[in-house]
């Protein structure tokens, strides 16, 4: 038997008809096609433009894509766009930075220390579900009319989401790695720096995606309630004046901002999580 060649082995099955085994291992791996997505977007925009150009819908209710772009260009040329965008950006960056920094500190404390966990989770669970924009009037009372209550509202929204993503990330660090480091007498601060922080980073960066959206939503809401400049204010004023092309231009700016932040976080992930 051992001396047989592979061909002998084939022959040994006899003269019965053979047929290939049907491939059944295709699995399920949907892969997004970049071009298909862009084509679909272009087709949707084309259809939208066509509907507007043929006057099938009143442009007051649905301005055309080209009308929105030209409104955006006019806003940029007049300097109004930058005035509103810079005001919103300042609020977002200040509030996000404040909420993220405090969320990371509190999240790590909850993840690492028993007392902080006991107290922290109780407060986070109780306060996280409150819509933060509902607190804005109270914050105006406490902090006065100005930038502070708007920044504080954003910071509060960002803080809770960051706290949760950080302590969830710390919890998700494989315990065998911490035990390994302890077995080599690695001191606690070094374990936090070399094991827990990098281990929690995927969850923290995933949290950044969420908090960037939270900050964007809150800045628009806060500016709609009480501000003289900012994209939220601009969108509200345009709506009140029935300038729907400008309103849509404002929404486009918000969308582009969201895309830019998402791209930035993707780059950050590619750089910091290349080991995955």
């Amino acid at each position, binding site marked *: 038997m051992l001396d047989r060649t592979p061909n002998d082995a084939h022959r040994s099955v006899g003269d019965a008809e053979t047929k290939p085994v049907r491939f059944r291992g295709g699995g399920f791996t949907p892969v997004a096609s970049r071009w298909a997505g862009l084509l679909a977007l272009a087709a949707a925009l084309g259809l939208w433009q066509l509907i507007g150009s043929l006057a099938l819908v009143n442009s007051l209710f649905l301005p055309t894509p080209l009308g929105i772009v030209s409104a955006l260009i006019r806003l940029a040329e007049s300097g109004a766009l930058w005035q509103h965008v810079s005001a919103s950006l300042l609020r977002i960056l200040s509030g996000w930075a404040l909420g993220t920094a405090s969320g990371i500190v509190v999240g790590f404390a909850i993840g690492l220390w028993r007392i902080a966990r006991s107290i922290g989770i109780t407060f986070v669970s109780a306060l996280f579900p409150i819509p933060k924009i509902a607190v804005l009037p109270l914050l105006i009372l406490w902090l006065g009319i100005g930038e502070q209550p708007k920044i504080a509202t954003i910071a509060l929204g960002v803080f809770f989401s960051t706290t949760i993503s950080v302590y969830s990330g710390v919890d998700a660090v494989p315990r*065998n*790695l911490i*035990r*390994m*480091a*302890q*077995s*080599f*007498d*690695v*001191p606690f601060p*070094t374990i936090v720096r*070399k*094991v827990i922080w*990098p*281990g929690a*980073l995927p969850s923290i960066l995933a949290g950044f995606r969420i908090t960037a959206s939270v900050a964007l939503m809150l800045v628009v809401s806060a500016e709609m309630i009480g501000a003289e400049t900012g994209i939220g204010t601009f969108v509200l004023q345009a709506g009140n004046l029935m300038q729907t092309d400008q309103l849509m231009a404002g929404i486009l700016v918000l969308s582009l901002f969201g895309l830019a932040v998402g791209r930035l976080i993707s780059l950050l992930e590619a750089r910091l*999580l290349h*080991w*995955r």
Partner: protein
Amino acid sequence: MDLIAETISHRFDALDVLDGVSFTAGAGEVVAIVGPSGCGKSTLLAILGGLLQPSTGQALLRGAPPAGSLNPLTFVFQDFALLPWASVADNVALPLLHTSLSAQQRAAAVDDALRRTGLVDFRMAYPKQLSGGMRQRVGIARALVVRPAMLLMDEPLSALDSQTRELLMEDFVDLLADGAMGAVYVTHNLEEAVRLADRIVVLSRRPGRIRKVVTVPATRRARGDQAMRAQLLDLQNELWALIRTEAIDAEREVQHA
């Protein structure tokens, strides 16, 4: 430096895991711990390495560590326990970060450990880029870098295929050849125990008690000889006969758990 298990007992809540285990692993000696599943082998190793407080009894060190030793007891883990975000060199350097060594001395120690484990060409690789055998070599290099008196190895080869296991066993024989470093080697695999250990401690089913301590004849190098094979196989069969009935009971217990 000797490592002593002094009447170690341990319970997890209502579960008695170890009962009065005592033995000494002498300097440069390799002691294998075998026994049926769930007999407390890994628990015993964790206690010996200071990762777990025993319910009663204690783990003791006797004598001075070898010259240049920065940590007398280091672990080699079954699941490798490598930092996936760190390169091979950074993983190996982890136990040195808090020591008083200069950066130059640290680099030299890492280079030496990588050389001893055949990892010099992989120093910048990440764990995901390595095979299981190479990952365990990183785990071994990390354990060696502090020049321990005693390696504590918890089923270090059980996650590997048989060919890689054979190759790493040969490496263990080389690493332990000069007798400068001892080891406590927990394993299910009796062949590994017979190939690598000077003495084999056989534990009973839970709660683990010492049933027998077997001395393995011949030096580790000589055990590779054809002439020794039959004798070692007899010893392996003798050990299996000691464990078999309890291993069957333990397996049924696990299935019913």
